[in-house]
């Protein structure tokens, strides 16, 4: 960068700045909105709030069942993540280390499932969930989220497991390990980065999922954050200040996780796509 002419350097910085504004500008505006008192919401200028207030944040928790909705989202996303990791790591162990026919087919089907439109099978799923009497429960969402996050889990874990040489498994067997011992004493600890990558992505996707959550929940008993935000109640018009506050509460933890784990997340996203 030292070799650059001042013109080149400043235009690079300008483009960098423009990219940052493009990405975070809308979010910053949402934060600004959440701090404006109601009277100022319909005024432009001023751009920044003249009397910043936390009223909207108080309202969201006091007048809305927002805490319950956050708990629902946390529980659904956590159970989904746990199930995906348990089921996915067993399957990926076989896919990466064991010798059998049909690996390509299984990974191919998993990829196809992750690409098809969820709305296309929501009608049978609705009938299944109704038949199991699971409507408006966490389990309806846990079931559907686990199904649709499992393919991603399989791809990420298999690609991480494959990087651990299979000879370790052979050596463990010679030392008298059962396959299962080799799995949880050797493979799992060695692939902790892969497991956390998968966990972060599955958790975030479940946290964000909307279509199934909208279809299978009817009350606050199981409603998750995206549905809560989409159906944000307003008597005459949308209460933009309260909604901005609710949005900020929901996205700040996600942004925090992203900043901390960005390397892991990028690794997970590129695991299948770029390596081929």
């Amino acid at each position: 960068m030292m070799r650059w002419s001042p013109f080149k350097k400043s235009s690079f910085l300008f483009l960098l700045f423009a990219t940052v504004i493009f990405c975070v500008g809308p979010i910053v505006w949402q934060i600004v909105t959440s701090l404006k008192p109601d009277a100022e919401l319909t005024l432009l200028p001023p751009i920044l709030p003249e009397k910043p207030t936390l009223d909207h944040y108080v309202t969201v928790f006091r007048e809305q069942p927002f805490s319950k909705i956050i708990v629902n989202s946390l529980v659904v996303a956590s159970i989904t993540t746990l199930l995906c990791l348990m089921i996915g790591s067993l399957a990926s162990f076989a896919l990466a280390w064991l010798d059998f026919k049909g690996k390509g087919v299984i990974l191919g089907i998993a990829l196809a499932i992750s690409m098809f439109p969820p709305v296309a099978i929501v009608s049978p799923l609705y009938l299944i969930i109704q038949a199991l009497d699971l409507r408006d429960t966490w389990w309806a969402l846990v079931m559907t989220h686990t199904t649709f996050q499992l393919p991603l889990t399989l791809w990420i874990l298999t690609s991480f497991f494959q990087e651990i040489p299979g000879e370790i498994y052979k050596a463990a067997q010679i030392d008298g390990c059962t396959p299962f011992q080799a799995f949880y004493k050797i493979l799992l600890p060695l692939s902790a980065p892969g497991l956390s990558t998968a966990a972060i992505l599955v958790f975030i996707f479940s946290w964000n999922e909307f279509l199934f959550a909208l279809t299978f929940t009817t009350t606050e008993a199981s409603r998750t954050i995206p549905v809560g935000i989409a159906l944000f109640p307003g008597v005459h018009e949308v209460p933009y200040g309260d909604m901005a506050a609710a949005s900020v509460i929901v996205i700040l933890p996600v942004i925090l996780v992203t900043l901390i784990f960005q390397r892991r997340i990028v690794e997970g996203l590129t695991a299948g796509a770029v390596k081929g």
Partner: protein
Amino acid sequence: MKSTDARLSYLLLAPALFILGSMALFPILVVIWLSLQRRLPIFNIATFVGVENYHFLVLDARFWNSLVNTLYFTTVSVVLELILGLAIAILLNRPFVARGWMRATLLIPWIIPTVVSARMWEWLYNVEFGILNYLLIIMGLSKEPLNWLGSPSWAIHAAIFMEVWKTTPFAAILFMAGLQTIPTELYHAARVDGATSWVVFRRITLPLLRPVILLVLLFRTLDAFRVFDAVYVLTGGGPANTTETLSIYTYKTLFQTLQFGYGSTLAVAMFGCVILISLVYLKLLGREYWRELAR
């Protein structure tokens, strides 16, 4: 040894296969079966009507409208994402101090819930109090406030713009990963030979990045084609169905008018489109890999 491996494998795979089979593959068969019925769950009506729903589908102007909307939305947003994403990736593909932070920043629009983004953009697009109109007017780019979400010609573009905002960074991140696989010696050699930036881009970057570009295109096309959350929350399909995509029409048919039969027919039609799109891309990708192998 091999047979014990295989037996163990199937045991380990059983839970995953059971879930995918019962909750993803089996429903596909059911949806085809449902599409051949007149089915209204609340009235307990379920009669087999054969291909009658498909006959209706072909004549259903609203279906064709939603298909055109979806294709327009998909094509325009994917093309924009590709161009912008590549530009951002090339911009960031050099060492500088805050590169990690920059990459994290790129992840943010993509990782926050789509519903939240839609609500956020709804507020940005607000006719009277939205910051977007305010900025356009004070910068002199527009004389009067634009009715982003209310006018039939603007609404779909407003939705596309939001989609581009949300997914361009994702494309950029995959392109950045792809760019890193290109050996820097190639660039140095080209510079020594006196190639201009444009020639370097055309002759080195683009051809070597082709497989990654095709993969990103495939993922993004299928993803944009099934768009639901973003548009459903932003416009609800309006005004006058100008932003109604296939997903939204299917969803409304299933859960607002409660026609499980015809709704499932729409779902099958969506499947058909997705398979068609995938086949086209797989053919392109396949040829690409074949050429790679032949080399």
